[in-house]
């Protein structure tokens, strides 16, 4: 019986299907995060063993990249752009609004588990600043009012 609260079989399936690719580490980490929403600490030894590298090496890679996370995200992940183009269109005001509205800071998840908030440095939507993305979908020219509407839309989809 597995003691873990994550699906070891799913992780092993990802690892087995990708481990023979050249430079397999990032594809495996993406595969696990796509499947589970995060990379469980317990999967580190499995990856290390499959790729014949140390656990420290795997941990180092996971923590180097901002995108990879080691704890489960909320139901929806909101990325707010902090980069210059968005700043020129009141991006900092939008950041403050998002934090206040959700009652959380960056890298946190709302108590109801609905939303995680992350900063992002450019979504490539700089012609429509400021921009946020929710679950990979980008929104442009987001005013604080528009942000609230989008949250309502996303909640309604659930």
């Amino acid at each position, binding site marked *: 019986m597995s003691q873990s609260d994550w699906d070891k079989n799913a992780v092993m399936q990802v690892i087995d299907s990708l481990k023979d690719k050249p430079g397999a580490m990032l594809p495996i980490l993406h595969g696990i995060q796509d499947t589970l929403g995060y990379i469980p600490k317990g999967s580190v030894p499995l990856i290390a063993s499959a790729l014949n590298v140390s656990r420290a090496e795997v941990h180092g890679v996971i923590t180097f990249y901002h995108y990879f996370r080691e704890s489960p995200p909320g139901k929806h992940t909101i990325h707010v752009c902090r980069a*210059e*183009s968005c700043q020129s269109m009141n991006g900092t005001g939008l950041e403050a609004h998002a934090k206040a509205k959700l009652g959380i800071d960056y890298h946190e998840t709302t108590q109801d588990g609905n939303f995680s908030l992350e900063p992002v440095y450019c979504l490539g939507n700089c012609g429509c600043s400021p921009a946020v993305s929710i679950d990979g979908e980008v929104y442009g020219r987001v005013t604080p009012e528009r942000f609230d509407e989008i949250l309502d839309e996303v909640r309604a989809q659930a």
Partner: protein
Amino acid sequence: MSIKVYVPRDSSALSLGAEKTAKAIVAEAGKRGLDINLVRNGSRGLFWLEPLVEVETANGRFAYGPVKPKDVDGLFDAGFLEGCSHRLSLGLTEEIEYLKKQERLTNARVGITDPVSLEDYLSHDGYRGLQNALKLTPAEIVKQVTDSGLRGRGGAAFPTGIKWNTVLNAQGDQKYIVCNADEGDSGTFSDRMIMEDDPFVLIEGMTIAGLAVGATKGYIYLRVEYPHAHKNLNTAIAAAEKSGYLGADICGSGKPFDLEVRLGAGAYVCGEETSLLESLEGKRGLVRYKPPLPAIKGLFGKPTVINNVISLASVPIILDKGGDYYRDFGMGRSRGTLPIQLAGNIKRPGLIEKAFGITLRELLYDYGGGSATGRPIKAVQVGGPLGSFVPESQFDTPLDYEAFAANWAVLGHGGVVVFDDTVNMAKMARYAMEFCAIESCGKCTPCRIGSTRGVEVMDKIINNQDRAKNIALLRDLSDVMLNSSLCALGGMTPFPVLSALNHFPGDFGAE
């Protein structure tokens, strides 16, 4: 016969509601019993008009924008499918001034075709460059690229032909083509537009590069923030494989070339070429010492061409029309065209592909129409987060690598971010240091430690603590970062910091 209606699928158009507009148009046409053929094209890059909808008429494509779902009913009433007069009518798309004045070589098909239709690509001059390349020797292909004067569009502006020649002459049982699609600079989106809106042109460019240097495998290292580009690239690669444009036998030539997309994971420094290669190899994105150059020892230790998306996507037209054709655009040592991305606080943001030589003032006012807020433009940052802030007094500088270098500024990847007079340049300088601290790979001390100390010094300056002393310290620190960092992240963070300080001393508390 059904009438073609175009609604973009580009992520900027989607970010402004193009999906809902497309659905509303289909529903309204259905309700009225009208036969339309909806094409999801790329974006023309006129973002203040998105969602920009086009209808095919006898005179050419006719545009409306920005079209919201609530406008659709009224548009049909006015004669939408015939190219009608309506408050959202823009006339024939090709006649829109912003588009008409451009010189679109690399972006020739962007916004026009269905991005993932190989048939569309072929009927719009696609794969003509590859067909020519297949008749040439590797050295002859490299010569065309060298003759074109093309320089690396990622920002470093290194001559592409020279890089290719080094890889061609390098010995190796395996060589690679790597596309740097980690477009992390704020204010830039031209790579994204190529990959979303015309992915075949990048695939063709990489295939030609493979033929030129003897590489049989290519990787596109794509940032994870671009999910639509990921999808379109994979769809286009599958279509190219199916039709023999990729795989074991390119167009019956007997030559193989395979292509794979790999995703980054939100590390800005992985846009630095050696860091990118480390990441592709499955490691932390630590910058490598150079030499050896990637052209000699690159991916997995093998000779590797690593080029930006726009550099590679410019190769097909060079091979189609010849190096001379491309070289005849531009000025000085900046040859060809640059896809400029006008962004930030600007009334008419968009993609503007022009020959080098256009001035910032023309871009900001003739194209851009001034700031979005209507306030005076105080500064523009050209070339991403490591680019200098340029003041109004330098707006007449032509876009040319050398002219910008003379002003201690860079063109970089062609992103232009506009700020109005409410911006505080000391805060922007602090942000530049903060960004460097967040994104530093940590390998070299000037960048790793210098950026954190830089934030602290900026905080003191902003809080009016020993200003004169701390400004002297900031200059000293910038000097160290500038001259002793391992790569451009630490080495160029002083560009925004010192340009802000030098051009806008008032924001730093100077009298």
